[in-house]
């Protein structure tokens, strides 16, 4: 029989705060992490978008020694800070290295390190390119930093599947624990890719909101006037272990990870399949694997990025998944507050889902001034948090990424 897998620790570095709790409190208060950026990129490069959801620049110097920070890309810095918080939260000062693993994710990798090194090469020549440039920019850099810090010798892996990455890494972590390959998995994802080049690219494909006059309201999933997503950055970590292992050491348990599901649209490199049928397949697979029924699902943390084309297929899929029970599931689109953390988004939204189950509180979706009439059936939490029912309930967290990746994790209350 497959052992129960539970979440015993959480940690996050997000545009809303330097910890999981600070992020959760800001979410409950309906705050936006999106602001006009304090840089000259718009002026210098003529970028149409001058806002993003950025991590407070003080977070890294306050949490990492300068020498350590210098050897890590920002995506690894955020990763390590969130992993430390999660391990401390789980009460895991020491673990058995041979039974500890890392399952991490990033969508883009060390883009800042790469591009800074390119500038250095152009301006000062190859001798000035830092020796650690390649290990800092490689996508497995964040996972390796966490693995070394916590002596995780049972395997350190990185999933790369765009914005579905850290839901896949959480799913993989579930498999590692459920199959008995490790007792503790440090799971999550990170991204630090707010750069003029990524903004230019996303903007050219008309994926970004251009609401420069009101950045706080730019991320508005399900609103009729939504015009694109808002780039975010940060990291989220969840500590997974078997229920037996957690109970044996007297750990607190946030929620159970019941299982997960995955699919691919195989349709278009950036556009999701318009009917949402493969998103539905991933959700169905998650609840089937978890042996849940639609009636059990009382909360959905939707992927809902606030793009005109993306939000509708997911809403259709949720409606089809839950059928007559769709009204009983409270749907939250937390990117309205966090922005879109790309490879870090699944982990942060799973943390929010776990907190929702633990506190029986579904986060709000801010900035819906007028609900898009095409969004029908689903029960969206708007403006302020909503209470979830008591008793045994379940929730899913959805992530979809460029490349047609669909990943869904199912959680149960404890």
């Amino acid at each position, binding site marked *: 029989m497959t052992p129960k897998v539970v979440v015993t620790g959480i940690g996050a570095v997000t545009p809303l705060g330097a910890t999981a709790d600070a992020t959760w409190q800001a979410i409950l208060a309906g705050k936006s992490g999106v602001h006009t950026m304090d840089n000259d990129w718009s002026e210098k490069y003529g970028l149409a978008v001058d806002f993003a959801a950025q991590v407070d620049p003080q977070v890294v110097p306050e949490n990492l020694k300068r020498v350590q920070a*210098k050897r890590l890309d920002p995506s690894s810095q955020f990763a390590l800070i969130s992993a430390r918080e999660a391990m401390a939260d789980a009460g895991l000062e020491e673990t058995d290295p041979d039974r500890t693993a890392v399952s991490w994710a990033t969508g883009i990798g060390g883009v800042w390190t790469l591009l800074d090194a390119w500038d250095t090469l152009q301006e000062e020549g190859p*001798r*000035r390119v*830092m*020796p*650690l440039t390649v290990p800092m920019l490689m996508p497995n850099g964040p996972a390796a930093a966490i693995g070394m810090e916590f002596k995780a010798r049972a395997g350190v892996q990185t999933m790369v599947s765009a914005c579905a990455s850290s839901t896949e890494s959480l799913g993989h972590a579930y498999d590692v624990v459920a199959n008995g390959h490790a007792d503790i998995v440090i799971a999550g994802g990170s991204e630090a890719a707010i750069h003029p080049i990524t903004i230019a690219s996303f903007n050219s494909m008309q994926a970004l909101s251009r609401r420069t006059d009101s950045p706080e309201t730019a991320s508005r999933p399900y609103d009729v006037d939504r015009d694109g997503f808002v780039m975010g950055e940060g990291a989220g970590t969840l500590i997974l272990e078997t229920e037996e292992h957690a109970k044996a050491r007297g750990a607190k348990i946030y929620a159970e990870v019941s299982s997960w599901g995955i699919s691919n649209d195989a349709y278009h490199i950036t556009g999701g399949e318009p009917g949402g049928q493969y998103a539905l397949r991933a959700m169905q697979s998650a609840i089937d694997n978890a042996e849940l029924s639609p009636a059990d699902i009382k909360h959905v943390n939707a992927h809902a990025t606030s793009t005109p084309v993306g939000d509708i297929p997911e809403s259709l899929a949720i409606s089809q998944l839950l059928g007559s029970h769709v009204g009983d599931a409270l749907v939250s689109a937390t990117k309205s507050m966090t922005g879109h953390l790309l490879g870090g988004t699944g982990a942060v939204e799973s943390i929010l889902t776990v907190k929702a189950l633990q506190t029986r509180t579904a986060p709000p979706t801010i900035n819906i001034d007028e609900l898009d009439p095409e969004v029908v059936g689903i029960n969206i939490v708007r403006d302020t948090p909503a209470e979830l029912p008591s008793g045994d309930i379940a929730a899913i967290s959805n992530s979809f990424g460029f490349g047609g990746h669909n990943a869904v994790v199912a959680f149960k209350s404890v």
Partner: protein
Amino acid sequence: MAFTEAEVLAGLAEIVNEETGLAVETVEASKSFTDDLDIDSISMMTIVVNAEKKFGVKIPDDDVKDLVTVQDAVDYINKAQEA
């Protein structure tokens, strides 16, 4: 204009401080980069490259292994300045 020996030592201490966070006063001439200051090969390369820029000298990779103590580096840079 050449740097004096004291200026080279002080300048090296600043470079080491920037790379490792070690206080400048701990970077004494007699100290070994690896054994006393715990500087690894990657930090050493960064220190060497920054020293090349600061003092306007060239320190080929093959010579770096001979720079065991801070005094070795000071002497090397002084000699390279004269060349």
